[in-house]
């Protein structure tokens, strides 16, 4: 019986020739991540463990992105606690305001994760790096503390679901539509405890931004991790961003998958998740008029340069509809700068949108765009749970940057074709 991509990476990092689904193992980690919300809890746990120093100061990273730039005094205290700890521990990869970006956009950009790595992060969207052919998964703060202390984490080896991608995406359809379609199909616990492995000839039409977006939302189907087969696009990306050598793991020909879905990318339509679960998907051709008051374009899911480019191309020369607040958040400083140089930020501002410094901000109802009672937002973020972006009666509709941009112009949930 062969192993999946995920199982091969886990076996290699546990010093084992072979692992099987259900086996409990201790895994050696290549990177341990935390942010300004989860790290303070981890730092306290780390100190309680009686450890003096982290296992490897190059392999622990903290990114101040959730409530940073500090939204209030308590948030400032939390960032200070992280800053002091990283200073004391001489942690190399500490990212504060000025260098920071949204963690899951920042780490691949900085080359901190390469194919074949095993990564944990005290943030559920740590599964993003599966796009690079790495095993990466979200954990809690105590696991992060354990990772910082001994460089290991315990795992139950997951079984897997295979997504065999075929064909090519249509214009103005992107990775976000694909992953929302998949979550709509399998449900928010459709991949609970499992790996989602993405393979097939269709991969060649998916950019790294598409893949990072799709792996990012594996957790929204309950998955332990999402992972993409490594191809030339992955290798080129890793080479551009990191000096480290990637290690490519392929699933065995006789690897066991609980289920295989064949997905024809050319059949994917603009997909929107209605409140209050990501699985409540509808395509834009089957919804009536849903008026909105806010649009958020950004987040670890869709704040990359390709996302901003797609939105800017749709909004170019148009105006944000009266009564709509459109908030654009480049995910990292580098993306911000590149979007400025490419003229996208000028386009947004001329349209009547605002452009924010990188932050997770409104995605989790932190700051920079909280919704009032009964308000509706179209967001390129990843969760539309009750009250997540503000008041408990507000509503979040998850969509691609293309749909979000079109919706900002029309003031209602719209397909890009409506404004082009």
């Amino acid at each position, binding site marked *: 019986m062969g192993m999946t991509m995920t199982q091969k990476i886990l076996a290699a990092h546990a010093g084992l020739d072979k692992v099987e689904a259900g086996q*409990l193992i*201790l895994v050696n980690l290549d990177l341990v991540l935390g942010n300004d*919300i*989860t790290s*303070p*809890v981890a730092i*306290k*746990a780390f100190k*309680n*463990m*009686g*450890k003096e120093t982290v296992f490897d100061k190059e392999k622990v990273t903290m990114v101040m992105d*959730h*409530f940073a730039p500090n*939204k*209030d005094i*308590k*948030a400032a205290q*939390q960032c200070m606690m992280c800053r002091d700890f990283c200073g004391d521990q001489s942690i190399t990869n500490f990212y504060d305001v000025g260098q920071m970006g949204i963690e899951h956009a920042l780490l691949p950009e900085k080359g901190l994760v390469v194919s074949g790595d095993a990564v944990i*992060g*005290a*943030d*559920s969207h*740590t599964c993003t790096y599966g796009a690079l052919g790495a095993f990466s998964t*979200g*954990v*809690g*703060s*105590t*696991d992060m*503390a*354990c990772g910082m*202390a*001994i460089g*290991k984490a*315990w795992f139950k080896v997951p079984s897997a679901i295979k997504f065999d991608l075929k064909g090519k995406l249509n214009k103005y359809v992107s990775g976000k539509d694909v992953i929302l379609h998949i979550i709509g199909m399998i449900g*928010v*616990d459709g991949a*609970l*405890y499992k790996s989602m492995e993405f393979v097939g000839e269709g991969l060649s039409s998916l950019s790294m931004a598409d893949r990072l977006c799709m792996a990012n939302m594996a*957790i929204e189907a*309950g998955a*332990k991790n999402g992972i993409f087969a490594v191809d030339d696009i992955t290798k080129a990306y890793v080479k551009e961003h990191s000096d480290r050598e990637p290690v490519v793991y392929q699933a065995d020909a006789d690897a066991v998958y609980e289920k295989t879905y064949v997905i024809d990318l050319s059949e994917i339509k603009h997909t929107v998740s209605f409140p209050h*679960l990501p699985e409540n998907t509808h395509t834009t051709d089957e919804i009536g008029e849903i008026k909105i008051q806010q649009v958020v374009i950004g987040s670890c899911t869709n704040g990359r340069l390709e996302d901003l480019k797609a939105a800017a191309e749709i909004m170019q020369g148009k105006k944000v509809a009266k009564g709509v607040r459109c908030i654009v958040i480049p995910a990292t400083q580098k993306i911000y700068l590149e979007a400025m140089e490419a003229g996208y930020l000028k386009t947004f501002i001329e349209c009547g949108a605002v452009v924010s410094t990188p932050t997770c901000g409104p995605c*989790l*109802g*932190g700051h920079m765009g909280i919704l009032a009672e009964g308000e509706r937002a179209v967001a390129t973020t990843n*969760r539309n*749970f*009750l*009250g*997540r972006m503000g008041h*408990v009666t507000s509503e979040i509709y998850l969509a691609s940057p293309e749909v979000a941009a079109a919706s900002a112009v029309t003031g209602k949930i719209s397909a890009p074709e409506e404004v082009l």
Partner: protein
Amino acid sequence: MKFTGKVIKYGDNIDTDVIIPARYLNTSDHKELASHCMEDIDTTFVSRVQKGDIMVGGWNFGCGSSREHAPIAIKASGISLVIAKSFARIFYRNAINIGLAIVESEKAAEAIQEGNTITADLDNGILHNETTGEDYQVEPFPAFIQTIIENGGLVESIKNGSIQ
């Protein structure tokens, strides 16, 4: 491990944003987190929860964010045990790591009703419903996880060298 408590019951897909909304994550103080536990779906929870009460949920309990603040808020509010049809994986490991007892049982989570009194004997894998007289068999934890729980969580397990 044995617990007896009154049941507070919720539905499917109870996510960590409703267990503890992100607007309160600017602190990691256990009492403060507990004071806002469940407030977006149940404004009465904080005032009616009694020490030792048992929370029951449906499928995919604890889905969403990795915030450990969620099981911390539940534990600090006085809840002794969470029973659900299934748990989201990060919540599941966080609960084990911080020492919040959890049990996965479709049958029990379906049958047990709000206000029932439950005695849970986790060593023998039996949940007894004092209100209805029913018993529900549950799966014991795997040995590795049992070790973490017996050591009082992951921090203690590292501290005493049982995990290296």
